[in-house]
């Protein structure tokens, strides 16, 4: 969404530095929504592919949602606007990736034959 400092006209809506008609804007939002739903369905279908590695399975299952999330961030949240403040907010993305990658990395780095301690069993 762009700043609402632009005058309210029925002709154009300022988004991501471009001026589109409201009709064009709606088309973009509709296309993003359809693409997201397709991504969700593909993620469900990918469930049938059983990979050997748990880490690989998790990484693959997060790939399509990442594409879907990028569409939301770029087109619905308008992070494509070249503003320094958005770039600083975008720092949360590598943080998120690091939070996901660290446990996977540590799991792949276990010595052979190592087993976790038994968990609580109700």
């Amino acid at each position, binding site marked *: 969404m762009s700043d*609402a*400092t632009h005058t309210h006209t029925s002709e154009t809506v300022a988004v991501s530095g471009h001026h589109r008609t409201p009709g064009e804007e709606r088309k973009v939002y509709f296309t993003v929504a359809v693409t997201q739903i397709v991504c969700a369905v593909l993620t469900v279908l990918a469930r049938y592919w059983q990979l050997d590695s748990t880490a690989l399975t998790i990484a693959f299952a997060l790939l399509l949602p990442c594409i879907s999330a990028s569409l939301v961030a770029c087109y619905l949240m308008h992070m494509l606007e070249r503003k320094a*403040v958005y770039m600083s907010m975008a720092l949360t993305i590598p*943080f998120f990736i690091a939070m*996901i990658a660290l446990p996977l990395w540590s799991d792949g780095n276990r010595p052979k034959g190592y087993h976790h301690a038994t*968990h609580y069993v109700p």
Partner: protein
Amino acid sequence: MEIPYTVKPRPDTGLYNAKIGIWLFLASEVMLFGALFSSYILLRVGAPDGFWPDVPTAWPHGLLNVPLGTFNTAVLITSSMTVMMAWTALKENNFAKFRKFMTVTLLCAVLFLCIKGYEYNDKFTHYVIRLKDGSALTGHLEINGSSPRFWTEDTLAAKKLESVEVLQDIPTVLRYPSGFKHEEVAHEPGEHHIKREIKTADIQSLRPFVPATGTFFAIYFTMTFLHALHIIGGVLVMGYMTFVGGGMWKTEPERYTNRIESVGLFWHFVDLVWIFLFPVMYLL
């Protein structure tokens, strides 16, 4: 004193203040959910191999309703689209159209919560039963034609039941990764449950699918309930802005539009979180 930069952008940031505020809030939310996703992965990859519930500490598979989860994903994606349509309608000076799209958004949010509530109820009536011979099974209890919630072996003892009827789940190949052995349950083709009577004296433990029953349930309920709280918060704010606080549109239309934009940003974030929660919880 007038609050500065509610409509015009600050020269240094290029954004009005509410937008900076909501982005900072969303950044902190990324930290919160990032930590929870990280915890999930730690628990998930740390779970021992094996077939749950035979191996009590193994990671359960296929306990959640994938078609319902997929439908809920589509509902949330639709609501994310309609909130943008509503904002565009304000840009066109069309308040009636804005209200229409916001109403659709709110309906989608309520539908999402109803489906989630239905799923939660199914979990609260679903049990893992460990027998004294060492075997384990999952299913719904059937007591006088209804499915009780939150029962344990203590409840059975208190009610002095000699036996209970169980609608036992039948594991399918799709539900469980190949390579794990599990006890075959005789059933007719296409059947998903079989009715079975179990003597109370044979039951070692009876646990509903609640957070205390295992790490999967703990992280599932923590993350989905936190997400549901965000949905409830969004519904309250959007409902207020659309129906109660709509008067601002007449006096300060640009400020009102900015407020809707901020609410929309929050709503997209809620959508983003679910986009990751769905595959992580339902499919992996």
